[in-house]
């Protein structure tokens, strides 16, 4: 899946003085963390630091880091390319090389980027992978993506099969299967490419850091239950989940970032203020919405602006759970390193079946006292999109609220129709108004 968001920090800052973009401390912190990470990646060939490419859902960052390796998440490269206006060319490059118009645009964007010299989001060159850790967590495309990258880079690949929660739970035998794979496949592969021995104490330490950050992230996301909500749990939260979904889970930097973020958000909550959006603070909130599906990245700011213009705030989203679902109690457990990694992988949003996804959305609508919910269906993502029309009806049935359905794509700008989305959103919000006034309820 998709993504993860370590977007350009400055767009979330309110322009208080003309030309001046003030930043919260957490924003500055995140920006510096990212810059430092990409600097380390650029220097990896010189410093002989091993590099492991892996996916956001089911990423084993603590384990990778315990071997002294640096993670790279190609989905993030792709979404960043989308935000920086580069994805159109990268996708065209991949299509010229024979990739179909009909498949996931993240893959094509990433392949196009690799073909064009592999320049990362901060403008520095990304190193080649020493290992592709194919964490097969809830998206078929992952398998093909790394088969394609394997051809491109000619590097070793290790496959981690994360059994899908077809029955709505991670069966004990599936958990055991995952643990065994980590022990007998993933760890030896990491030992091979890094030349280091598995160090469980170090791993436990990183897992304990993850846990602290996860506590803070959950606290941040749950502030959206307040009115007004001090955060936007979709457009704003994609920045919040950035560090924990990627290279910074299990790091001191990650802990610091979430601690600071929580402090800021709680302060905003105490002051009764809303989130800061690219168009200014959203303190007056007329609509509280739940959103399902990834955002569009090529027109991210425009997309968000449509909500802000209507004083609509997103109070919960499923997309911000693709790299881990924490709000129902799961935390990384340093006492059970392999088991906790298995639980983590199995529980990522992409790995949940449709009934569980419907339950989660209905739960959000109720718990966060939402006025409605919206599905952003992504053209080239079957993992998310197949079945969403039925999900829409099921959530409507469970909550008694009508839902909205819009369509776009992740990083292919050809499939973003602003007028269409805006119309649908406006009509939907008008419908909510009508219901409030008891018309057509």
């Amino acid at each position, binding site marked *: 899946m998709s993504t993860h968001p370590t977007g350009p920090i400055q767009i979330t800052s309110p322009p208080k003085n003309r030309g001046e973009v003030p930043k919260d401390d957490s924003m500055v912190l995140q920006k510096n963390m990212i810059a430092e990470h990409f600097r380390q990646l650029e220097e990896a060939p010189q410093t002989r630091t091993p590099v492991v490419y892996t996916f956001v859902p089911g990423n084993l960052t603590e384990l990778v880091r315990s071997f002294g390796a640096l993670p790279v998440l190609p989905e993030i490269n792709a979404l960043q390319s989308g935000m920086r206006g580069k994805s159109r060319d990268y996708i065209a490059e991949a299509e010229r090389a024979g990739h179909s118009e009909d498949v996931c645009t993240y893959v094509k964007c990433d392949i196009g980027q690799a073909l064009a010299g592999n320049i990362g989001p901060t403008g520095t060159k990304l190193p080649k992978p020493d290992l592709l850790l194919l964490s097969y967590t809830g998206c078929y495309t992952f398998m*093909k993506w790394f088969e394609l990258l394997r051809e491109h880079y000619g590097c070793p690949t290790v496959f981690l099969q994360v059994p*899908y929660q077809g029955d709505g739970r991670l069966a004990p035998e599936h958990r055991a299967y995952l643990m065994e794979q980590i022990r007998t496949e993933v760890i030896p592969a990491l030992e091979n490419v890094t030349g280091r021995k598995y160090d469980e104490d170090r791993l436990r330490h990183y897992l304990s850091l993850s846990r602290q950050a996860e506590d803070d992230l959950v606290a941040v996301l749950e502030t959206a239950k307040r009115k007004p909500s001090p955060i936007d749990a979709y457009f704003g939260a994609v920045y919040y989940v950035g560090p924990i979904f990627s290279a910074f889970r299990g790091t001191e930097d990650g802990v610091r970032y979430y601690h600071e973020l929580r402090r800021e958000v709680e302060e905003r909550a105490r002051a009764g203020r809303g989130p800061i959006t690219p168009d200014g603070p959203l303190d007056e909130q007329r609509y509280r919405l739940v959103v399902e599906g990834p955002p569009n990245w090529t027109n991210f700011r425009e997309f968000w602006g449509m909500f802000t213009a209507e004083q609509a705030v997103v109070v919960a989203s499923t997309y911000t759970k693709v790299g881990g679902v924490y709000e129902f109690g799961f935390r990384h457990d340093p006492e059970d390193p392999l088991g906790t990694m298995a639980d983590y992988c199995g529980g990522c949003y992409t790995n949940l079946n449709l009934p569980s996804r419907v339950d989660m959305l209905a739960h959000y609508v109720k718990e966060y006292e939402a006025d409605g919910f919206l599905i952003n269906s992504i053209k080239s993502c079957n993992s998310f999109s197949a079945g969403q029309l039925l999900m829409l009806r099921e959530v409507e049935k469970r909550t008694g609220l009508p839902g909205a359905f819009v369509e776009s794509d992740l990083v292919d700008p050809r499939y973003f129709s602003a007028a269409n989305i805006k119309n649908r959103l406006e009509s939907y919000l008008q419908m909510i108004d009508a219901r409030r006034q008891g018309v057509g309820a």
Partner: protein
Amino acid sequence: MSRQEIVSWARSCYEDVRFEKPRAWLADHPERRAVGHLPVYAPKEIVWACGMLPVGIYGGGDQVEIIRGDAYYQSYICHLPRSVIELALSGRLDFLSGVLFPSTCDVIRNLSGMWQLLYEKIYVRYLDLPQIADPDLATRFWERELKTLADDLSEISGIRASDDRLRAAITTYNEVRSTMRALYRARGEAPWRVPTEEVYLLLRAAEVTPPDEFLAQARAYLAAVEEDTSRPKDRCRVIVVGSFCEQPPLGLIKTIERAGCYIVGDDFLLGSRLNQQDIPVDGDPLHQLAASLVRGAARTSVLYDPDPEGKPRLMPQQVRESQADGVIFAAPSFCDPALLDRPMLRAGAEKAGIPCIAFQYSENTGQFQQYRDQAGTFSDSIKLWGGA
């Protein structure tokens, strides 16, 4: 029975979108049950060992008008699931006691969840095929999955999948597969006598009829083919790749052959032939079933290929084995597995100097002119130049 009668029987199975054949089988004994499965692979042996008829669900092809299915799927999702939903909502699948959804792609995976939401009383199982490189661990995982399936189905049918029943089912399906291999062999040796249309119809019949009925018909067909004295025509030999899930309309298969390309290799209905060798009947049957899939499955887009050379070598190897002249990549529109694999497979073919063409179709495609032109030109270029 004449060859013509056999082909008509197979065609009637193929055209039977109300599933009258399995319904008739069920009606013979009220306690019988049937279990459907989506493409690509499902362990039919287990279903059969539980006294149930495995029924392949391959959508409605070009015969079912989509009335409700489009309300369930966006336009950018392949056609198969919407026609499967159409079949279900119109009551055509109401004879099934359960449906199995193999891990073919995310569309079929999510369809399993839709079934859970729409049909709470029907048994639904998602089958996560083994993907990892370590064959022992993969076998243990898959064996355990098979055991769960066997236990669940035994409960529904009231017939326990005992070791003896499982061995008998393995023997039966070994015969089915070996007969299918014989059909493919016959076609490869003399495609002018064994048109793909006929082989395909027989394979489709195998998806909805009890194995013994298919065996009788297919064996009779093979015997009839022996009598055929037709002469070869000046056509090239091709393999068709990418059609393992949503099936091409029959008209498209005929069009390719009539345009000058004998199909001598394909991945139509691949699930029934995924196990390439006989499964041993000694030892623990569930273990043998699991180990055979892990060690002997055909290479396909729906399974991870741990061998980095696997993809680039696959087309040259298949072309060699089928003595083909070229490859036609024919994939359903919006099909992730086929379309994501295509660049890797095509690059391997082209590197080996194998001529290729590619197109997309939908199960309900009704116009074949563009395919006729493409396949015709392809065939001419191969005949003239030995390649594109």
